[in-house]
């Protein structure tokens, strides 16, 4: 995903302004705003559009803004930690405040693609550093000493020679008179001087979470709120023909019922529903609004009857897709008619003819639903021609509320609320659109009846969420590899038929062994009708591709008679088209063989890989390596498998390189362990299937996540390697190599090669 956080423009200025009731605001201003003030007569202390990140309170505590959404990956800690480090205050002096969605002030406020850390690492530090430097200047001027002799710590300025100290708060009034500071003059701390970054810093919402305070989107409860359910067609693209609206209206607690028509379809190539880059649209359905959610849900499940126009997707099914795909696979040696070759180096077909050994295999993985634990919900209040919305969207957008409620984006107030998990599901925000539509309809109907407008919470049931997701695309890969007489990989071909509109072809920088084999050819062909929406799920597209690539790479190594880990290291040491990186940039950089080798070597040593032959029968170790979202992760998993296909993950080791600096060491370890556990869910039980154009699975009983008993005590050991590259994100990279590490370990334990997920389909269960 392409993102641009509002970087501090070279022409920006940092300026202090007064806080009503005492205290100091530190803001970032565009040059024009600063100069306008300087020119203006008696410029007011609080200028237009202050991009305020820091508030200095009279008691020398500090409120720092967390500008991005939070659904569990720790940005409410990480971004303020970056400011606090350079401001040189103690973390215990900090209170974190979540920003509203305001792109004018904050630029991109998104959670996606593991981008928050790399895109904010410099700007957030610059904000903190500029404030610190201006406070140093203020004190130096007051004390008439050189700035170079003035130091800071714990929110206090010191001059050792004259034994003077002053708190930041005590300097606030004088600091107001400081001239604006140019961004180009900001000097940052050296890494060795960090006091906060790299330390374990518990989540700022932990106390609210463990005491049951309202902390989540679902808990938002403005006065007088009503609750809504929205029944959509089970078949994607279907719409309401008729519904027994009048009967539903008579049910206990029900206040409003609406049949909602979809807007005209989005233009060709647009995906709608407010997804990334999409326009705003909504699916047709029936909205039931009641005194509490259970009344609305009860009226829906017991009384609502809808006559649906199921639309053209009604004829589609998983079985149909797979039949079609297997037909395409028979043509895997031919260029597809549409010319969909996505990566071609050398001549794989010619090389296969000279190979001493050929390895071929078919791999497949299913559609997945994200299933964050907090069901989709959003709260909106249409009032006086404006709309206020509370949501845990990962890409909050003013348009999502404005378009369906018929107001301008400038008339939207958008509160970003903590979400109970995201995993990419909340990149797609149908619920924000739907609730805004419903809130407008409720307000209009109440106005006609002479009643005041009220807020409305739309809450999807779990069944709604599983039936109406933007699913992780399914994939089918037909691999062919050629080895020379020494077992060296000389040709690699990957025919891909994914269903879904998100690419799962391993052609990008994450596609090792591309660049390390003379002939490499990866291409896709998926020409078939597909009416099921697909989208990004944690670590697109490697969350599926890592399984197939690492599984097949294991097969190739074993066919060559080699140690699968050493075979990868050897390949990484003999590049063909691969070019080493030109600089130390981490974010968005091409695949880096040095970093890949380093995590493999580290996990080899952590896991005692070279002594794995001493493991008992039925126990084995497997390895997987993935470059995903600018991070490098290698796993070794050790599993035990019994004769009844009962599987236990005994232990896993992770070596991770996300650059020179971990922001929050506690959250970082947690995210890696969680990524591995999520991988266990993908591995064993998760599969979404389609019949009659609708999703078959309905709830967690048919979509079982990994549970406590499957995660053995002390299972997941994590080591972060510190490399010289600029820091990158960690939301995504830890998940993709987990399933293949386990699958490769199953092979080592049993000699059985798993080529299709989930494992449950092949009769496996957790021990």
């Amino acid at each position, binding site marked *: 995903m392409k993102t641009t956080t509002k970087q501090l423009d070279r022409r920006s200025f940092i300026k202090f302004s007064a806080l009503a009731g005492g205290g100091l605001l530190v803001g970032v201003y565009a040059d024009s705003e600063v100069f306008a003030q300087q020119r203006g007569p008696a410029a007011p202390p609080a200028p237009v559009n202050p991009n305020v990140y820091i508030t200095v309170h009279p008691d020398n505590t500090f409120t720092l803004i967390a500008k991005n959404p939070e659904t569990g990956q720790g940005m409410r800690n990480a971004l303020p930690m970056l400011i606090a480090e350079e401001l040189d205050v103690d973390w215990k002096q900090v209170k974190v405040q979540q920003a509203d969605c305001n792109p004018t002030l904050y630029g991109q406020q998104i959670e996606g693609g593991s981008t928050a850390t790399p895109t904010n690492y410099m700007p957030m530090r610059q904000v903190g550093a500029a404030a610190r430097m201006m406070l140093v200047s203020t004190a130096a001027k007051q004390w008439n000493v050189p700035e170079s002799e003035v130091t800071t710590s714990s929110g206090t300025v010191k001059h050792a020679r004259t034994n003077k100290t002053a708190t930041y708060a005590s300097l606030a009034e004088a600091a107001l008179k400081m001239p604006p500071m140019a961004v180009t003059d900001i000097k940052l701390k050296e890494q060795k001087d960090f006091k906060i970054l790299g330390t374990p810093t518990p989540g700022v919402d932990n106390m609210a979470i463990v005491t049951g305070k309202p902390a989540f989107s679902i808990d938002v409860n403005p006065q007088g709120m009503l609750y809504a359910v929205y029944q959509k067609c089970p078949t994607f693209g279907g719409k309401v023909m008729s519904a027994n609206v009048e009967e539903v209206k008579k049910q206990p607690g029900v206040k409003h019922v609406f049949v909602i028509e979809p807007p005209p379809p989005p233009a060709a190539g647009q995906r709608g529903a407010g997804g990334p880059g999409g326009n705003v649209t909504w699916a047709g359905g029936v909205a039931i609004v009641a005194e509490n959610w259970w009344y609305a849900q009860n009226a829906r499940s017991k009384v609502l009857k809808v006559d649906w126009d199921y639309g053209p997707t009604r004829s589609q099914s998983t079985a149909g897709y797979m039949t079609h795909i297997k037909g395409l696979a028979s043509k895997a040696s031919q260029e597809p008619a549409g010319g969909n070759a996505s990566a071609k180096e050398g001549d794989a077909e010619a090389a296969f003819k000279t190979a001493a050994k050929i390895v071929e295999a078919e791999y497949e993985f299913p559609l997945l639903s994200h299933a964050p634990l907090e069901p989709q919900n959003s709260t909106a209040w249409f009032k006086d021609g404006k709309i206020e919305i509370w949501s845990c969207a990962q890409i909050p957008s003013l348009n999502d509320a404005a378009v369906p409620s018929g107001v301008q984006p400038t008339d939207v107030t958008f509160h970003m609320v903590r979400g109970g*998990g995201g995993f990419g599901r909340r990149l797609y925000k149908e619920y924000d659109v739907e609730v805004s539509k419903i809130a407008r309809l409720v307000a209009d109907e109440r106005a006609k009846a002479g009643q005041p407008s009220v807020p409305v919470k739309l809450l999807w049931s779990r069944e709604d969420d599983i039936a109406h997701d933007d699913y992780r695309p399914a994939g089918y890969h037909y691999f062919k590899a050629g080895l020379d007489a020494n077992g060296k990989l000389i040709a690699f071909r990957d025919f891909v038929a994914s269903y879904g509109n998100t690419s799962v072809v391993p052609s990008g920088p994450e596609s090792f062994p591309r660049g390390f084999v003379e002939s490499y050819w990866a291409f896709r062909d998926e020409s078939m009708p597909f009416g099921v929406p697909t989208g990004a799920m944690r670590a697109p597209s490697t969350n599926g591709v890592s399984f197939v690539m690492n599984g097949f790479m294991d097969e190739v190594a074993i066919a060559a008679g080699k140690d699968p880990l050493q075979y990868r290291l050897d390949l990484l040491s003999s590049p063909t088209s691969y070019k080493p990186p030109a600089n130390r940039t981490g974010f968005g950089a091409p695949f880096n063989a040095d970093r890949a080798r380093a995590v493999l070597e580290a996990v080899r040593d952590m896991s005692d890989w070279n002594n794995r032959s001493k493991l008992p029968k039925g126990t084995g170790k497997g390895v997987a390596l993935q470059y995903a979202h600018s991070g490098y992760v290698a796993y070794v998993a050790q599993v035990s498998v019994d004769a009844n296909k009962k599987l236990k993950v005994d232990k896993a080791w992770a070596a991770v390189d996300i650059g020179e600096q971990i922001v929050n060491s506690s959250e970082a370890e947690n995210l890696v362990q969680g990524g591995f*556990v999520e991988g266990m869910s993908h591995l064993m039980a998760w599969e979404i299937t389609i019949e009659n154009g609708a999703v078959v699975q309905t709830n967690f009983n048919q979509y079982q996540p990994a549970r406590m008993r499957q995660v053995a005590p002390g*299972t997941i050991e994590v080591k972060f390697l510190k490399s010289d590259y600029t820091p990158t994100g960690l939301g995504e990279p830890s998940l993709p190599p987990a399933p293949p590490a386990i699958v490769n370990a199953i092979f080592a334990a049993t000699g059985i090669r798993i080529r299709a997920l989930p494992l449950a389909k092949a009769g496996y269960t957790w021990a």
Partner: protein
Amino acid sequence: MPYTLKINGQSKSVDVPADMPLLWVLRDVLNMKGTKFGCGIGACGACTVHLGGTAVRACQTQISRVGNQEVKTIEGLSNDGSHPLQKAWLEVDVPQCGYCQAGQLMTAAALLAKTPKPTDADIDSAMTGNVCRCGTYVRIREAIHLAANGGRKA
């Protein structure tokens, strides 16, 4: 139907249908938002509360079946994070998204009330009905042991 409930040591009166689940009485009628909705079928554990000291799924507990039994919710564990399990959760920094943790804590509290020094197998057995979608099980286990050890690392 009018019901008088004993919740976290307080008496609360509500007038709701007999088949309304305790979860929605807590959340939408009494405005106690700590107990979470996750699946509605008793498959995820997010809504776990204590009924007469036993961990139950509030989404599967009709209000008419509560009777005189004491209901304890996450809000009743302690308001200030002083319960040993809450302290352990804070110390270990368990949460990622945090949505499941109220249910995890309530199940763990019922476990420790009956089994003050649980083994790993005891924890597996008690906690397996509580999903953590983020996968914080390693830390949940660590925090339960920490609380059982009086806050001292084993």
